[in-house]
């Protein structure tokens, strides 16, 4: 594992971006070429990641080296440095693995789009930024990757820039991410103020040895970790700042798969897992867990009533991210990351299948206009089913293992969280299979003209689906067998501090409970939606509340966006700037002109007036001179 390997791994997508970006005009002729260049770049990174994983798996020490000095001065030094340990290699494999499959899928999906090369340039830039985020050996590098992926998600969401809704969604995503980054930045400053450096190694070491300058007194780490968590909330779409993810579905579907399911949104989980030491010392895990589980439940309830396939998957992602935060919050960092890995695969799979459904249905997303696609698109149907089963926690599939581990350790931390987690698992199973039954089963509600050319997607699209379906199903079994002694825990033990509370109670009982809950969800969905299609308008008050997503967007708009916009337009600009400040400046001018005006009238031109004023002057002067001096 040498620095050259890491540099090649990192720079390959950058080169792909430069080729597609700069030479875009000449590549416009044959789309396939730029598509394959993009995919090849990610393939190179995948190969390097596998090499890195192999050497790490073979017992090599974690790799931590500095490439060059970035911003340095006397009392501070921020370098560009890389760190590859178990956690990083897992993330690398997920990013480059899922990334590569999505790149190949996009070649088919984006066929005929005139911004083809631009699309692949942005996608490669995204992978590059995500790699920086994951590979960095200090918080500043992570922040650089953090903002880089934010930029790429802005570019890709607003990819079809003619669509006003797309560019609005892109702008919304960037700004909400920026709010999160604001917290992240302040967290970094607090850490630097306390430790004098931002490198992971030295911070964790100093934190454990507890010898750092107290900036905010004993609560320094608490404040630092909470601020970093604000960054995570922004990036991984948790409770207050999740509003951008559902709108991000405006972008092309492979983008949603890669960015808004597998990689970018998990950056927050990765950050907390990376700074596990700090969260353990500062005991802020509870806050993370609570926000995680509440987001999970909240998003699941909204997903119940949505009718747009991608919106349902988006809310399901928000909900599953809540689970991951729940995992890392209660100290089960390994299971949190494990769920991240499994989720990356099956959610990526589901988005891609949704993409192929859209592709076939001429970009129609409303499932009320679908139904009975099982017969027309068998492969898409089966792959989607695998994903749905995995996410619903169907026994022995990947979702089951990772979600169960999280719920198990959640029970150890606090029963209430466990109960909410369980209810959310039920809701997840329900809305997933509501989607399956409405779109793939029952009679077809597809319009005749669309129905005529309804066909299975081309091989270049369904082959990656098939490849992705295999790990979605089996990876849970492969990595998670044996609960806390599983291969995955063993592999990541070096990075994470051991869970500070042992998960009591026997494992089998928890597995049985969660699988029962999963199956119940599926059965309930079967009973309700086997024949009936979801009604068009919401029936009762609760239904209407959920359908309108708790009016959160409208609230933000009314409470934050409009007041700022109108406030700054009328109050700040018109009144304060033009009115007061400019008023004073111009006022000075008018006052002087006014004084000039009055003085002018004194010059009457009459000699007598002048003489009188002269004599008056003399009289007054004499009076003063005689009586006062």
């Amino acid at each position, binding site marked *: 594992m040498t620095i050259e390997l890491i540099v090649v791994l990192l720079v390959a997508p950058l080169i792909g971006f430069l080729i597609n970006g700069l030479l875009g005009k000449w590549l416009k002729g044959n789309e396939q070429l730029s598509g394959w260049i993009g995919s090849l770049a990610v393939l190179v990174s995948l190969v390097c990641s596998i090499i890195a994983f192999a050497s790490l798996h073979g017992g090599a020490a974690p790799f931590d080296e500095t490439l060059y000095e970035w911003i340095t001065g006397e009392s501070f030094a921020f370098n560009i440095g890389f760190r590859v340990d178990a956690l990083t290699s897992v993330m690398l494999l997920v990013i480059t693995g899922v990334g590569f499959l999505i790149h190949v899928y996009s070649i088919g999906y984006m066929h005929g789009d005139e911004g083809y090369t631009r699309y692949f340039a942005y996608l490669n830039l995204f992978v590059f930024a995500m790699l920086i985020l994951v590979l960095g050996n200090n918080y500043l590098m992570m922040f650089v990757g953090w903002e880089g992926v934010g930029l790429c998600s802005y570019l890709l969401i607003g990819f079809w820039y003619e669509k006003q809704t797309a560019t609005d969604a892109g702008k919304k995503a960037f700004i909400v991410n920026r709010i999160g980054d604001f917290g992240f930045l302040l967290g970094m*400053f607090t850490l630097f103020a306390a430790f004098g450096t931002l490198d992971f190694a030295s911070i964790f070491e100093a934190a454990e040895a507890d010898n750092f300058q107290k900036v905010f007194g004993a609560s320094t780490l608490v404040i630092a970790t909470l601020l970093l968590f604000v960054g995570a909330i922004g990036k991984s779409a948790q409770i207050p700042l999740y509003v951008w993810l559902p709108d991000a579905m405006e972008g092309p579907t492979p983008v949603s798969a890669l960015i808004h399911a597998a990689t970018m949104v998990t950056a927050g989980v990765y950050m907390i897992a990376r700074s596990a030491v700090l969260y353990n010392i500062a005991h802020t895990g509870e806050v993370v867990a609570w926000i995680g589980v509440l987001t999970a439940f909240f998003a699941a309830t909204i997903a119940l009533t949505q009718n747009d396939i991608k919106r349902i998957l988006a809310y399901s992602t928000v909900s599953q991210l809540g689970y991951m935060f729940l995992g890392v919050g209660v100290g089960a960092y390994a299971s949190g990351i494990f769920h991240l890995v499994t989720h990356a695969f099956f959610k990526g799979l589901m988005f891609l299948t949704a993409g192929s459904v859209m592709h076939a249905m001429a970009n129609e997303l409303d499932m009320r206009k679908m139904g009975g696609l099982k017969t027309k698109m068998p492969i898409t149907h089966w792959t989607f089913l695998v994903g749905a089963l995995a996410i619903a926690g169907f026994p022995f599939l990947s979702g089951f293992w990772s979600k169960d581990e999280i719920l198990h350790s959640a029970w150890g931390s606090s029963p209430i969280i466990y109960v909410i987690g369980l209810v959310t698992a039920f809701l997840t199973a329900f809305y997933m299979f509501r989607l399956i039954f409405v779109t793939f089963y029952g009679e077809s509600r597809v319009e005749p003209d669309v129905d005529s050319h309804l066909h299975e997607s081309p091989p270049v699209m369904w082959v990656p689906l098939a490849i992705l379906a295999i790990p979605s199903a089996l990876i849970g079994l492969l990595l998670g067998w044996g609960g806390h002694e599983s291969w995955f825990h063993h592999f990541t033990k070096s990075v994470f501090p051991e869970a500070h509370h042992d998960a009591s109670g026997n494992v089998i009982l928890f597995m049985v409970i969660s699988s029962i809950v999963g199956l119940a969800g599926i059965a309930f969905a079967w009973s309700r939606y086997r024949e009936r299609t979801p009604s068009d308008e919401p029936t009762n008050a609760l239904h209407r509340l959920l359908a309108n997503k708790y009016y959160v967007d409208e609230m933000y708009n009314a409470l934050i966006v409009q007041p700022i916009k109108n406030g700054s337009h009328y109050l700040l600009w018109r009144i304060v700037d033009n009115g007061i400040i400019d008023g004073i400046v111009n006022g000075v001018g008018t006052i002087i002109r006014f004084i000039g005006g009055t003085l002018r009238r004194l010059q009457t031109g009459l000699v007598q007036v002048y003489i009188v004023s002269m004599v008056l002057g003399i009289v007054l002067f004499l009076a003063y001179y005689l009586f006062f001096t």
Partner: protein
Amino acid sequence: MLLSIVIFLPLLGVIAIALLRGLGASAIKGIALVIGLLTFIVSLGLYTGFDTTTATFQNVTQQAWIPGLGTSYHIGIDGISLWLVLLTTFLTPVCILAAWNSVEKGLSGFMMSLLALETGMLGVFCALDLFLFFVFWESMLIPMYFLIGIWGGERRIYATVKFVLYTMAGSALMLVGILALYFQNNNSFDLTTLSGPFEHSHLLFLAFFIAFAIKVPLFPFHTWLPDAHVEAPTVGSVILAGVLLKMGTYGIIRFCLPLFPDAATEFTPLIVPLAVIGIIYGALVAMVQPDLKKLVAYSSVSHLGFVVLGLFSKNPAGIQGSVLQMINHGLSTGALFLLVGMIYERRHSRMIVDFGGLAKGMPIFATIFMIVTLSSIGLPGLNGFVGEYMILFGSFVQGAFSKIYVVLATAGVILAAVYMLWMFQRVMFGTLDKTNEALPDLNAREIVVMLPILLFIVWIGVYPKPFLSKMEKSVGLVVTQVQTEPAVGRAGEQILQDTELALHGTQRAQNEKIEKEAETK
């Protein structure tokens, strides 16, 4: 000698153009460009010859000018002014190239005032004599007055008069300050011999500071900027935003901080809130501007609020960050104005509402505009981030003021993204109507204008080391002068040692002067 050449070469150009005016437009433009490039190349000589180990002034030339008055032609540069000189000599040829065919009437006058402006600006950055500094400071106003007044927009007279009067009011105060210093420095204007506490240093600090705050512009004194920018010709705006605004911040770091450290500490709780208000207020007002140039002008108010915040953080990183941010702002806002100028030449409108979907019609323009926008909102990997990060981090870690201001300033980073991206979306994305469809994309000349700036934007973002190392020692000297208590942190002692060396330098100069006087008595 090299420095004098750099300063007065543009003046040579002015004379050359004045004489050869009859040869027609292309000759004038040719001469101007050659002079501009020549100055830049010669100024690179300054860069290569610059010794980064000491904080003392280099390339110093001192000639007797008006001995009776106690003033001398005393110029020199250090780590800070080196970069500002290079920024000026870099931006001027770019501007000359950008204004190639945008000036119809009075081309020779235009080029002459541009080059005269360059001489004025270079003089300000290199003057080590208060009298000389004031002369250049005032002389720089005249060409700017003509640039805006003659080649400006509709309300140009109002704008240029407001600009000149505002600056003159400030510099009148400064003149009083200079004279006060003159008398307290036994009748000499020499900056290097000025030292030690001055009587009523608070008033003097205020006199200097207000003059510079108007130039920066700091929050309450900023209303001249949007008018000046809107009415100025494209190139005028570029130079105004690129270099003229930096005179204010340069003045603060050259005069206010080192000469009156105690007053600076005392006034920090007053100035820093103004800077933070400037950041937030500038961003909020920029968001709602219908006019592109006004938006960029208000964004300058916001960016320079960061710089002032950094300057008063009394922390090596903070001050270094603000000096770097001066250069970054010069590049990114200069580029923004160039781009706005380019679409103005095509569409003859600056209203955001008139544009839409330009990305489709002008892809190259859109990509360059995107890169410059990202640099201006401080995306990591580009130049804006490095400066802003150092300022915020410097003032947070060991700032001379409470951390709430840093939190508010960091919130300014969000607002920066809001107004720039909203503008970018309304201009670049959306549907393309017929009139915008006909707009041609950037031609070769315009791309050549933008390339060097983009190069620096990426270079400073990715590898700022050469930029930071050159200014490190000079900033260290300023920090020790400002900090009454020794610099905190492990590098503190190290700064102190080599600034001893620097101070001895000035001390020795002072002793010699005293002995000389003793002999003459």
